């Protein structure tokens, strides 16, 4: 195997490289599944339960069946329709058209028709008789005696998540300062720009799914099981997809229904959700109630951390815990975490960009800020006092590299932190403040997958990977690796991805694992090609392969520079036209772990007359290992920050207390940040510790760290500006007006 030593200086990797598919994206020529039209295609739409909790008593499709354009209707009784859904170790809790509807929007029937209008009109015309049931949508009341139960055994969703080390009672007894606070975080809905949906067809006994998803192989496996097909009989593609943020990792009822309808009608079926539907049934970030208590010595050393929390994963099993960060970010010998997960009559949660971590950071980082104030310590200094070198949560194994301290220090310097902290807040009604928050991402990914690189005799190359590019620029940094190792210009590299028929296995794109799991495989594949080229040259030059090196398209003998051959003159290459290299991801090295760290700094301006808060600037200092592509890395940081602004300031699902229905199931009333809600000043400071042990490219993940600490950094800045601690999201004029008025009235 050729040189897998860590890169030192790189020529291509680490530069600012425009996306290799940017042309397709800016020209409108990229075809997303939403755009796909297949010959003879039908359109499908669902009939959904309008109640928060109900049982279907009767379904009458007779009027719908007679409507124009309708070709098939599926109900719970249709053959093959009883597909299980929402799994537990004991078996499925529900199925495709479960007559026990546990949240608004649960699917009751599906229609295939010639046009989408006809399908939706027919779906509306399906007459369903419901028995409405009492519901609970307030997760803080789900365990109250008499609360309506969603499942047998009540509304506890599994056993509480616990983590304990040391002795917190002792720790608090030793503490010289204690803060105890309660926090609430929003229920956020992913709402990627492209809604969820699939275009499905059968080719004989092969099931073809053109999808918008984050992991074609995981979904192939699921759908193969659903339809009891061999893996190879299912093809899932998702080349261009319009965002997911974790909501497109799971099988969709829209895919199942489309597959059944397609099989029944013998025609391709397109089933895409409307925007309104995506608020109800394809996932959310669990809301949390977190009670956090921190104890520390006068010098800021933490002595105890206790977190008691409740959250909800919705109507079906999905974790809602947020305690990881408290258990691992800061050095603390005594920790006790207990989190309860409950069912409520609302859509099931799905993994949402750093699941649990923005919630945990909202609590932890504001509590640390309050602790710093109590101790008279600078917030950055307090954190620097408690930086661990090991993962306490993993039993104390050391990190390959941890940049938490450097992120805080370098970030503070670049931000002008000290000076900004001393600056007067403002003498008039408009005040300013700055805040900091730190974070980490706690998952080290699944080190699996294969990449294939083909080098072509004309000096170009192609790369095949199963990885989805969910907007992160995966295809481009992969091409940059090939360019780095083989000297092929990036513009001459073609990437095929995310097709279970033609691309090799890759893990799902989520959990910030795509770069650090896949890049070593891509590098290995490129190096495999390089090795083959060197061996051909060794044969041709009659020299030892170990003394050869490839540079600028020429292979030369290091010790006898006259012995050289241009790649294009390699005979076997000319004869075969392409050389194929395969790279396999090897398991993680043992004994240590590699995780990314982050610190965000925020400056805000608050108009104390109206409570309007403007974010003036954000700086993100990230230890995410090597920057593969300066452009897309920075874009991820700024994008994560934007999502953090949504968490902190604008987003929350509102469920009507009297009906349990969602009041704001649209993109005006459910508010995601607009261009005017982000600061005009964004800065990104990569902290690359040149980790050479964790993997062969020195990378860690960036997608999730980019959004973990933004919200508490903003909240801490609001506190610095106003003296008001906002423990419940969103920070918006509604809440600020209340809090400012309460302070004025001395409450």
């Amino acid at each position, binding site marked *: 195997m050729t040189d897998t030593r860590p890169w030192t200086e790189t020529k291509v990797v680490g530069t*600012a490289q*425009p*996306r290799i*598919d*940017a*042309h*397709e*994206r*800016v*020209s*409108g*020529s*990229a*075809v*997303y599944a*939403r*755009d796909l*039209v297949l010959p003879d295609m039908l359109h499908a739409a669902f009939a959904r339960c309008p109640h928060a909790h109900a049982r279907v008593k009767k379904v009458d499709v007779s009027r719908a069946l007679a409507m124009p354009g309708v070709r098939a209707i599926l109900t719970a009784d249709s053959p093959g329709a009883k597909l299980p859904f929402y799994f537990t170790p004991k078996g499925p809790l529900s199925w495709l058209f479960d007559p026990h509807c546990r949240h608004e929007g649960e699917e009751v029937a599906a229609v295939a028709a010639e046009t989408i*209008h006809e399908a939706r009109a027919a779906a509306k015309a399906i007459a369903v008789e419901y028995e409405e049931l009492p519901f609970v949508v307030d997760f803080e009341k789900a365990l109250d005696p008499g609360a309506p139960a969603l499942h047998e055994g009540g509304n506890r969703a599994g056993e509480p998540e616990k983590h304990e080390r040391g002795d917190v009672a002792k720790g608090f007894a030793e503490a010289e300062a204690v803060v105890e606070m309660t926090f609430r975080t929003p229920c956020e809905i*992913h*709402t*990627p*720009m*492209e*809604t969820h949906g699939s275009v499905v067809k059968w080719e004989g006994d092969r099931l073809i799914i053109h999808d918008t998803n984050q992991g074609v192989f995981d979904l192939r496996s699921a759908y193969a099981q659903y339809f009891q097909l061999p893996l190879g009989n299912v093809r899932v593609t998702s080349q*261009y*997809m*319009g*965002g997911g*943020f974790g909501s497109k990792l799971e099988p969709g009822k829209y895919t199942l229904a489309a597959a059944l309808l397609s099989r029944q009608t013998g025609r391709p079926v397109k089933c895409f959700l*409307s*925007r309104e539907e995506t608020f109800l049934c394809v996932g959310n970030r669990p809301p949390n109630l977190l009670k956090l208590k921190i104890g520390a010595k006068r010098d800021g050393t933490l002595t105890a951390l206790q977190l008691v929390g409740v959250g909800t994963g919705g109507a079906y099993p999905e974790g809602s815990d947020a305690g990881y960060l408290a258990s691992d970010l800061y050095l603390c010998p005594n920790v006790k975490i207990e989190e309860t997960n409950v069912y409520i009559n609302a859509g099931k949660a799905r993994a949402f960009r750093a699941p649990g971590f923005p919630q945990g950071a909202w609590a932890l980082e504001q509590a640390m800020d309050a602790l710093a104030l109590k101790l008279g310590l600078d917030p950055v200094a307090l954190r620097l006092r408690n930086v661990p070198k090991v993962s306490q949560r993993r039993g104390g194994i050391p990190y390959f590299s941890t940049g938490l301290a450097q992120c805080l220090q370098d970030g503070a310097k670049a931000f002008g932190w000290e000076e900004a902290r001393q600056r007067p807040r403002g003498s008039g009604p408009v005040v300013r403040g700055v805040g900091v928050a730190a974070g980490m991402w706690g998952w080290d990914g699944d080190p699996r997958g294969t990449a294939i690189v083909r080098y072509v005799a004309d000096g170009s190359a192609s790369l095949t990977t199963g990885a989805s590019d*969910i*907007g*992160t*620029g995966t295809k481009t940094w992969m091409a940059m690796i090939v360019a780095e190792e083989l000297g092929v210009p990036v513009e001459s590299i073609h990437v095929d991805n995310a097709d279970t028929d033609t691309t090799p296995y890759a893990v799902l794109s989520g959990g910030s694992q795509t770069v650090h799991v896949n890049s070593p495989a891509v590098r290995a594949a490129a190096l495999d090609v390089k090795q083959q080229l060197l061996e051909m040259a060794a044969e041709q030059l009659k020299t030892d392969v170990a003394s050869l090196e490839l540079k600028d398209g020429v292979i030369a003998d290091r010790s006898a520079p006259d012995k050289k051959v241009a790649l294009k003159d390699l005979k076997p290459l000319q004869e075969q036209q392409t050389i194929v290299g395969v790279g396999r991801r090897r398991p993680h090295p043992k004994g240590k772990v590699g995780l990314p760290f982050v610190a965000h700094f925020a400056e805000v301006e608050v108009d104390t007359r109206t409570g309007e808060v403007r974010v003036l600037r954000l700086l993100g200092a990230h230890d995410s290992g090597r920057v593969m592509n300066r*452009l*897309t890395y*920075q*874009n*991820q940081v*700024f*994008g*994560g*920050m*934007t*999502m953090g602004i949504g968490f902190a300031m604008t987003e929350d699902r509102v469920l009507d207390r009297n009906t349990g229905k969602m009041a704001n199931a*649209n*993109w*005006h009333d459910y508010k*995601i*940040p*607009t*261009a*005017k809600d*982000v600061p*005009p000043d*964004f800065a990104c400071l990569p902290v690359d510790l040149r980790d050479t042990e964790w993997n062969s490219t020195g990378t860690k993940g960036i997608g999730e760290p980019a959004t973990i600490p933004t919200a508490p950094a903003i909240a801490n800045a609001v506190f610095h500006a106003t003296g008001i601690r906002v423990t419940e999201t969103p920070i918006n004029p509604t809440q600020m007006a209340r809090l400012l008025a309460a302070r004025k009235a001395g409450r």
Partner: protein
Amino acid sequence: MERVSRRGFITSAGVGAIGAAALGGAEAETAAATVRAAGEPAPITLRVNGRARALSVLPRTTLLEALHEHLGLAGTKPGCERGECGACTVLVDGQTRYACQMLALEAEGHEVTTIEGLARGEQLSDVQKAFVAEDAMQCGYCTPGQVMAVEGLLRHEKDPSLDEIREGVSGNLCRCGAYAHIFKAAQRAAAARRNGGK
């Protein structure tokens, strides 16, 4: 210079002039407008990207549906179909609009420009090139709408400030959060256009 609508001035001058009786003469010569029946597809011609396109639409067909479904111009994307996200932004007579909030019939007689109308063959426009250079996209789904919004802005404002750029794309959601780079792309494109390149 104030824009005065000549025709409006002539017909509305005076008090209470607009009413059933006031409009004789010219109006009497105009044929009554055709009522397009609800369920019957009717032929129309739309001018899209400089070409006349013939298609058959229902009254309820939106311009977005006409473009995305009927004409196969899938660059104009459905994001919400409620006028709340901007993914379907097009230019109508050079002004940005949401195609989903416009009936196809309303677009008759107007010039519609979609994302497909900006490039010359394979040559991207200056705004598109700027988006590429500044990486002003992530998943790319909102990108055509963002490009159209910037194009619309630059047609009316040669040297937009950062605030004007932010305002110009304030009707275009980007869930991936590429706003920061979109601002840079707009600045880059504005400079390129001012310097004569296109």
